[in-house]
């Protein structure tokens, strides 16, 4: 199973949802789905009873409401709405909640996941399962048609078989499969970390589950048998199976609409710097176009099915001619979507083919802009041709010729595409890997499907051949020879990226040839059947078609064997295939410049796009600068570190800032840091000490950092540092608003303007713990004393040591309380010593030495024990004022208690003014 490296381990969002086991969600599904279903039944019963409707039981009404609610019950149970509901109810939510993001085990694929890569994989696997069901239905059809007469199914069941086959293949396989493949690769291709709306994306995927289950379940409650087109009024005669289909297809349809909105917003707003529209890979163009088609078109099919459903269940008369409805209206509404749907099922495949042909021909796509514009042209024209499905329907006669003209015009951009693809492989260096075999096979089969499409675009030939096997041949040449071939090409092409494993090339080639031969042997003879006069959608046929039908049925088994091979190859390779390198095909687009599979947010840093996506054969040309390492197995040589500027002065040696740098470094482990310490009018030696300490700590963490003290103000120092190297971001540490001089001077805003880059402000509270500096490179000195603390002599000594090497200090002020610790006397003593210790800490911090401290009630030897046990110092420095016998006499005891820690005794010079301290 694939896993995404958790490169995002350390980051500090607070309101993450608690992690719950997988069973939690599925238990919720287990009770919520039936509960919602039951609620639907109760609601209808209640309403019907209250309004006195007769009869109380009307199966279709109950099923309509109950299945609709059951679908929502499932989605609620699996957790699609949890975050939104919390937000709507005013509960605390984290807008950057990533707790549902990414996969570290197989379990992450069986719950709501917001990672586009996980969702992409979920889509591909689920829709392929639907494909298997659709294929089983197809084989049932071929079994029945193997010889004339009725063998296995009656007319009603047969009608159900082909209707269900088509609906599964269209709504549950081709459309969502393309959405799934694009879900995986499209955000990476444009250099984004994810889709624009990850939670909506998850909802889109999970909606397919209830939708698919309803459609698959419909045969068990009475087939929907009016064909996938569900023409009224025949569809209105149907039973519960039709209801399930019409509710199920709404889930699939809205899934598709949500995904389309997601793609559009993602492509419009989340492209990496430099990714202009003319640098977008053609797959991105294709999906942008398709998404626009879906957003404009799919609501029409939703509407047509709702109207149909209302006619059946609610007694409306949209399409009931006997009640003033219009039968033809259904077809207009339906095809207004369903013709564009043909392009929804084809254009993403065009995108895949462009990628595959360029990569395996080692040549730029021929006529990139023409291909992109042809895609858009097909989509736009696609809205003006719907009535070519209705040439014999009895619609207004005059519509036929205009629609014929627009229809054949579409052949022009389609032709441009085919010729441009031929131009792409011409004089290339063709590598016949499996995706390439499928792409080349596609060129052949799609050409046949396209040409028969021109035949069918003309009215007289449609009149002769519509509703025959000629149509069946045509749509299968387009949807299998077109869509399914491109889907196979796409799955093979990105399999290494998605799973991190290589598939078996030999099996892949076998699978292609079996499928290619099986497909053509199945579908090509159907042209003959149709021209000869065999109508489609019939279980029984004339004796003279017997031989050809038998050949077709036998040939279709080749595709079954091929699919079994495919499943074996995919599953086996996923589990134990050889590890895939980052870029097995030496592709140029961004998805090949990240690891296989990509890390959780795809890119370590934002990539910078610097050229077109297909610049094969051009010396030194590149599509994007991606900061990827060579040491993790990538064969990329574009590794280069990016610099973050850190600006701080007193706040430099603080826990918060060091933690912020560590966090940044953990997120994007190819950052380096340059630290600018502005020290105009300040103690430059202190600044230098802080810098050295921080650098020592960061070096120990393996974080690449360097720094410099500038004799400049903060903004000037930052600007100067930024002018010396290109920076990609900045971190500024200040005190909080009340105590910060910088904030009073508006330094952060001025800096933001001057640097013109992403700037993070860290607020530091003074006097916090300095565990951040618990590093080997930083000497830890514990100072034990009482009267000797806060003397200039001691400060000078510590500064001297700090200048020799990074140093941190813990001050243990030994109060020397004897007797009970609760007396007023003891309290006064404690306070007094505490003040002295605090003063020392303040002086140390000012001097650029990180320091913390503690008051110890007892005497110096006790403090030494505390030091040895809790602070693990490198050195204990006993500081005594000259003549301070309590300390001086205790030095030996201190040594004893300190154990292996070295102890030095420092006597503060008498001349130095020590703070008066009565004893």
């Amino acid at each position, binding site marked *: 199973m694939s896993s995404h490296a958790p490169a995002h381990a350390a980051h500090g969002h607070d309101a993450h949802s608690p992690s719950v086991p997988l069973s939690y969600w599925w238990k919720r599904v287990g009770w919520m789905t039936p509960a919602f279903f039951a609620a639907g039944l109760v609601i209808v019963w209640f309403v019907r009873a209250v309004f006195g409707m007769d009869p109380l039981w009307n199966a279709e009404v109950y099923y309509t409401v109950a299945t609709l609610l059951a679908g929502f019950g499932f989605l609620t149970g699996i957790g699609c709405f949890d975050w939104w509901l919390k937000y709507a109810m005013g509960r605390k939510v984290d807008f950057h909640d990533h707790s549902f993001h990414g996969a570290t085990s197989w379990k992450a694929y069986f719950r709501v996941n917001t990672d586009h890569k996980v969702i992409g994989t979920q889509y591909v696997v689920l829709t392929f399962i639907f494909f298997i069901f659709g294929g089983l239905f197809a084989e049932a059809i071929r079994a029945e048609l193997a010889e004339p007469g009725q063998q296995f199914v009656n007319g009603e069941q047969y009608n159900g078989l082909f209707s269900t086959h088509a609906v599964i293949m269209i709504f549950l396989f081709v459309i969502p499969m393309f959405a799934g493949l694009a879900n995986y690769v499209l955000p990476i291709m444009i250099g984004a970390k994810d889709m624009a709306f990850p939670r909506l994306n998850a909802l889109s995927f999970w909606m397919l589950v209830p939708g698919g289950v309803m459609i698959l379940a419909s045969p068990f409650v009475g087939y929907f048998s009016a064909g996938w087109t569900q023409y009224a009024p025949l569809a209105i005669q149907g039973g519960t199976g039709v209801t399930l289909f019409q509710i199920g297809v709404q889930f699939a349809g809205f899934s598709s609409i949500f995904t389309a909105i997601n793609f559009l917003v993602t492509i419009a707003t989340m492209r990496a710097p430099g990714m202009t529209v003319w640098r977008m890979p053609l797959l991105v163009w294709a999906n942008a176009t398709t998404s626009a088609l879906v957003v404009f078109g799919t609501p029409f099919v939703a509407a047509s099915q709702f109207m149909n459903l209302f006619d059946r269940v609610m007694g409306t008369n949209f399409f009931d001619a006997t009640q003033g409805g219009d*039968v033809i209206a259904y077809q207009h509404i339906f095809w207004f979507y369903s013709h564009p749907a043909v392009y929804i099922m084809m254009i993403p495949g065009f995108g895949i083919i462009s990628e595959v042909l360029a990569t395996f021909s080692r*040549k730029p796509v021929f006529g990139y802009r023409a291909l992109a514009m042809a895609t858009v042209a097909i989509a736009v024209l696609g809205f003006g041709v719907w009535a070519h499905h209705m040439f014999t329907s009895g619609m207004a006669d005059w519509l036929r010729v205009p629609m014929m003209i627009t229809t054949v015009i579409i*052949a022009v951009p389609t032709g441009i595409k085919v010729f441009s693809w031929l131009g792409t492989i011409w004089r290339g260096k063709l590598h016949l890997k499996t995706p390439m075999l499928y792409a080349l096979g596609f060129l052949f089969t799609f050409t046949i499907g396209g040409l028969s499409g021109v035949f069918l675009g003309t009215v007289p030939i449609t009149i002769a051949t519509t509703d025959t096997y000629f149509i069946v041949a045509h749509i299968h040449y387009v949807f299998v020879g077109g869509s399914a071939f491109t889907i196979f090409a796409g799955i093979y092409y990105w399999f290494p990226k998605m799973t991190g494993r290589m598939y078996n090339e030999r099996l892949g080639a076998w699978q292609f040839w079996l499928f290619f031969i099986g497909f053509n042997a199945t579908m090509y003879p159907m042209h003959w059947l149709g021209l000869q*006069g065999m109508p489609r959608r019939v279980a029984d046929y004339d004796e003279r078609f017997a031989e050809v039908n038998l050949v077709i049925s036998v040939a279709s088994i080749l595709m079954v064997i091929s699919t079994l091979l495919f499943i074996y190859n995919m599953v086996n390779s996923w589990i134990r295939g050889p590890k895939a390198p980052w870029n097995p095909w030496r592709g140029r687009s961004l998805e090949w410049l990240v690891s296989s599979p990509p890390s959780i947010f795809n890119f370590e840093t934002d990539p910078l796009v610097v050229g077109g996506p297909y610049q094969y054969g051009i010396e030194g040309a590149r599509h994007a600068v991606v900061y990827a390492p060579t040491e993790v197995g990538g064969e990329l040589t574009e590794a280069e570190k990016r610099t973050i500027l850190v600006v701080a002065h007193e706040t430099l040696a603080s826990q918060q800032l060091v933690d912020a740098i560590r966090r940044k470094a953990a997120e994007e482990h190819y950052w380096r840091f340059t630290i600018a310490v502005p020290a105009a009018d300040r103690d430059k030696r202190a600044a230098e000490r802080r810098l050295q300490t921080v650098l020592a700590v960061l070096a120990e963490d393996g974080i690449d950092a360097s720094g410099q003290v500038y004799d400049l103000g903060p903004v000037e120092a930052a600007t100067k540092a930024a002018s010396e190297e290109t920076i990609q971001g900045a971190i500024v540490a200040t005190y909080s608003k009340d105590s910060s001089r910088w904030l009073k001077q508006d330094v952060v805003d001025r800096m933001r303007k001057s640097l013109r880059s992403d700037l993070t402000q860290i607020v530091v509270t003074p006097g916090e713990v300095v565990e951040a500096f618990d590093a080997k490179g930083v000497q830890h000195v514990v100072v034990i004393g009482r009267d000797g603390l806060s003397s200039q002599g001691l400060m000078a000594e510590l500064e001297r040591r700090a200048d020799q090497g990074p140093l941190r200090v813990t001050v243990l002020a030994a109060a020397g309380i004897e007797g009970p610790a609760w007396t007023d006397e003891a309290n006064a003593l404690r306070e007094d010593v505490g003040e002295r210790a605090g003063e020392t800490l303040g002086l140390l911090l000012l001097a650029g030495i990180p320091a913390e401290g503690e008051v110890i009630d007892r005497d110096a030897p006790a403090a030494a024990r505390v030091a040895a046990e809790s602070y693990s110092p490198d050195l204990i420095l006993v500081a005594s004022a000259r003549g301070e016998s309590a300390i001086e006499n205790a030095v030996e005891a201190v040594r004893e208690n300190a154990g292996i820690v070295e102890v030095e005794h420092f006597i503060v010079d008498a001349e130095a003014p020590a703070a008066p301290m009565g004893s």
Partner: protein
Amino acid sequence: MLNSRHTGPLALLTLVVGAITVAQAFVIDWLPEQAGEEAARIDWLLWFMFWVSAVFFVLVTVVLLYCVWAFRAKPGDETDGPPIHGNTRLEVVWTLIPAFLLAVVVVLAIVVLEDNEATAADRVKVEVIGEQFVWRMQYPEIGVESGDLRIPVDRQVELTMRASDVIHSFWVPAMRVKQDVVPGITTDLVFTPDKVGTYEVVCAEVCGVGHGVMRTRAIVMEPDAYAEWLAAAQAKVRADADQAPTAPAGDGGGDAEPAEEG
């Protein structure tokens, strides 16, 4: 795009692929019996389009096969192909030539459509009713109803069609004509049979359980035989009406007809 190195093999491949394409067009009997004037025009258009399509099909297939044969990378060859990004002249050519041919196709299609739907003054009018799962033909002028469509040869027929339940589609493969029969509206279909014979009438639009068996016959007769049948049927209707004056005219009247079939 072409130079001497490529010309020879490409020509050879074109011959081979072209020969196969032409051969399958001739060897296979693609079209069924043709029994109407409309069928002749449609078949002509169909073959015209086939030859235009064949040119494109052969072109694409030949280039495809040649590329696979000639430009396949040698094992271990990791170099790239030449960075050709496009060729404006070529792109204009392969936009304009198909556009021109498609315009020709459209014009021809319009001509065929107009010819096929032009009505003649002396046409025979028959009313057709489609219902699950039978066809009923009514001859309104004489009050005859028949399960078969009986029509004279070489005279245009106009069918005025209605459906009583769901959509059906009236299709005579031998005439190459088809028209949906739709509840709530009346649709028309005209055709001119030019060959005596019995032809299949098929329901082409899925209409329910019995869709597959919703078939009948179109019997094209010599004008004399047609007149004879018509007279006999009319006589029978009158006789039936005399026997049972309340029975609706023409109920099942056509089935028992003794007229010979072409």
